[in-house]
């Protein structure tokens, strides 16, 4: 059929080839332009940087944190930019604070380093338990179970006590699933 058509058409082979080439090139360009514009927008998030890069956040006061060594959970509220929105005080995560008599408070990010679930402090077992895959952590955040699926202990955060008993935490999330503590 192709040949029978060409008998009627005054189209020598070379011209035909150039035409076909032009079709492919132009067809490629007109498909690529809208697609490339979309792809650029879609890839935009790749250039955004994490905002919780060690922001010092006021989390609690010493008065709210008894010195009995039992960890207590506190929400971390900080200003946050979410795409177009800028919010002054929004929950960006949570920490466990723990203080022993006369000691400095210690802070742990509540996120389990295994797969990112929130760990709970179990009063009865005196340890942290991850409800997802049963990782357990001792009071000092270390792994206390040889079969624990978590690659590292709970992520400890830097704490500062200032302004007459305010507890400030350098809040940061870390990458899940790695043995090293790499900021996310």
């Amino acid at each position: 059929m192709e040949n029978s058509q060409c008998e009627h058409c005054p189209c020598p082979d070379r011209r035909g080839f150039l035409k076909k080439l032009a079709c492919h090139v132009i067809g490629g360009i007109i498909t690529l332009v809208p697609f490339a514009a979309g792809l650029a927008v879609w890839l935009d998030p790749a250039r955004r940087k994490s905002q919780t890069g060690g922001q010092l956040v006021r989390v609690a006061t010493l008065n709210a944190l008894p010195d009995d060594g039992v960890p207590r959970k506190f929400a971390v509220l900080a200003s946050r930019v979410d795409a177009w929105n800028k919010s002054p005080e929004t929950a960006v995560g949570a920490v466990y604070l723990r203080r022993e008599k006369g000691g400095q408070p210690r802070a742990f990010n509540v996120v389990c380093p295994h797969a990112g679930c929130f760990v709970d402090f179990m009063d009865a077992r005196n340890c942290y338990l991850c409800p997802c895959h049963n990782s357990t952590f001792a009071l000092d955040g270390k792994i206390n179970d040889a079969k624990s699926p978590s690659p590292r202990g709970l992520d400890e955060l830097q704490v500062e006590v200032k302004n007459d008993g305010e507890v400030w935490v350098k809040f940061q999330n870390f990458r899940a699933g790695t043995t090293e503590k790499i900021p996310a």
Partner: protein
Amino acid sequence: MKKVAALYDWLDSRTGCKKLLHESLYENVPGGSRWRYVWGSTLTFAFMVQVITGIFLWMAYAPSSQTAWESVYYIQHEMWGGWLLRGIHHFTAQAMTVLLVLHLMQVVVDGAYKAPREINFFFGMLLLLLVLGLSLTGYLLPWDQKGYWATKVATNIMAITPFVGPELQKIVIGGTDYGHHTLTRFFALHAGVLPGLVILLIVGHVYLFRKHGLTAAQPKAKPDCAFWPDQVLKDVVACLAVLAAVIFFIVQRRLFGGGDLGAPLGAPADPSESFSAARPEWYFLFLFQFLKVEWLIKLFGHQGELVGAIIIPSVVLGLLFAMPFIGKWKLGHRFNLGLLGIILISATLLTVQAVREDLHKPEYLASVKQAEQESKRVVELARTRGIPITGAVELLRTDPVIQGPKLFAKNCASCHRYEGHNGLGLAVNDAQSAPDLKGFGSREWAAAFLDPKRIASSNFFGGTKFADGKMVRFVRKDATNFTPEQVQQITAALAAEAQLPALVEADKRDAVLIDAGRTFMTSDTARCTECHQFRKKDEDATAPDLTGYGSREWLIGIISNPKHERFYGKRNDRMPAFSDDKILDARSIELLADWLRGQP
């Protein structure tokens, strides 16, 4: 190469793709390839572009009344290539309307609607309506002032539909008023239902087109030819031209006048601020203008809208759909040609009329200018402050630059002026009877006040009861003895009291001059403190306090209550006490004061 061929064979034996490709590429083109056959292909291409760009836009768009504008702003101004993506989607939509009209013209002129192609003609007409539906729904999605108010008009017209109007309107807008559900519904229609139907109909349209073959333009210019490659080449070149036109429109505002790249985005929709420059997209302008036609209103009275917006368009549409049947009649084809011609010419004339009317309306032009200023300003605010959860419209509502002029026009401009106008750039009918407040508290202002020629002009005390008061007499007589240096000193010292943002640097630089001015003002030569209080408690002062004259606190004070003894006391002319008389709330007075002081 062999492997590719083998894979192709494998695929073909399972799908029959070779035959399909062959059929689509070697379709017979009677009379050879021609430029007039490209319209269908350009439309398919344009639709494909809309699907691709639409899906990517979808990934960044958030349909709710506090996030729609905001997410579109983010795409347009913050995301990589967002302006290009939006621009392509926006202008290809407009191109589609033009291409649809061209395609329809070609079909009617060539008589391609005649038997046995009636069904395919109906498919085409339905596609036209669906694409117009896509335009209408898409126009609202950015949730800017223009789209919001224009679409509101369209859905209000829907409410006059006989019997079911109000219910229909509620269902379409997802409630009794515009809100979250208007957006979710419009978005579902725009990105799901309508494109789905378009795809189904395009498949049917192309199938029927292939079944009946191309309607050759007579007489045939050349022998028959295959679709590939001659016609395909013409088609892709036409598509390239469409894309080039779209790109041109994306960059044209930047090229000719330094506007934004891509599609325009107005200020965020504000239900409390009607927008008198709201117009439908240009291809609906003729319908908009049609409702303003006088004979329609004269002939049908209050039913004019129903007739103009629903009945006449339905009849015209009905006639268009009936073209295949009308075409059977001896003169039918000519009738159809005439009908299409009349529709297109009337639509063009109405569109031209609509545009020309607007260009001669000062309110429209002021509204457009205001809208441009607001859309620029809100982007500036969103960039510097970020958008609160309550939405970008809050940024404008709490912004002195935007609210100041509006408050001024409403509350002050019947007596005062701002640079000769009402604050918003419009002239005022009432004669000016109080000072022009542009540059209030600045050095220019202070200098003009001490100028014997200007103090009693209408821009200062001319229209007030102080026109031949003590101050005017003082300036005309005593102040003429001041040396130019002394005038300069007073000017700098008085303007320094205002602590205007624009004068921070100058005040620092001229500290010595200002000090000299302050000393001079209290001297027996200047005699300011004979009536005014200045930087020292003065129980006997009878004229407005010059301490902090023009400062934020001073301005808020005088707007709140000019009858206070610190200002004009009992000698106040006609100025209302905006706070004490409960005319304006504290926030509005602050906005006014900040704007007058040029505080962003």
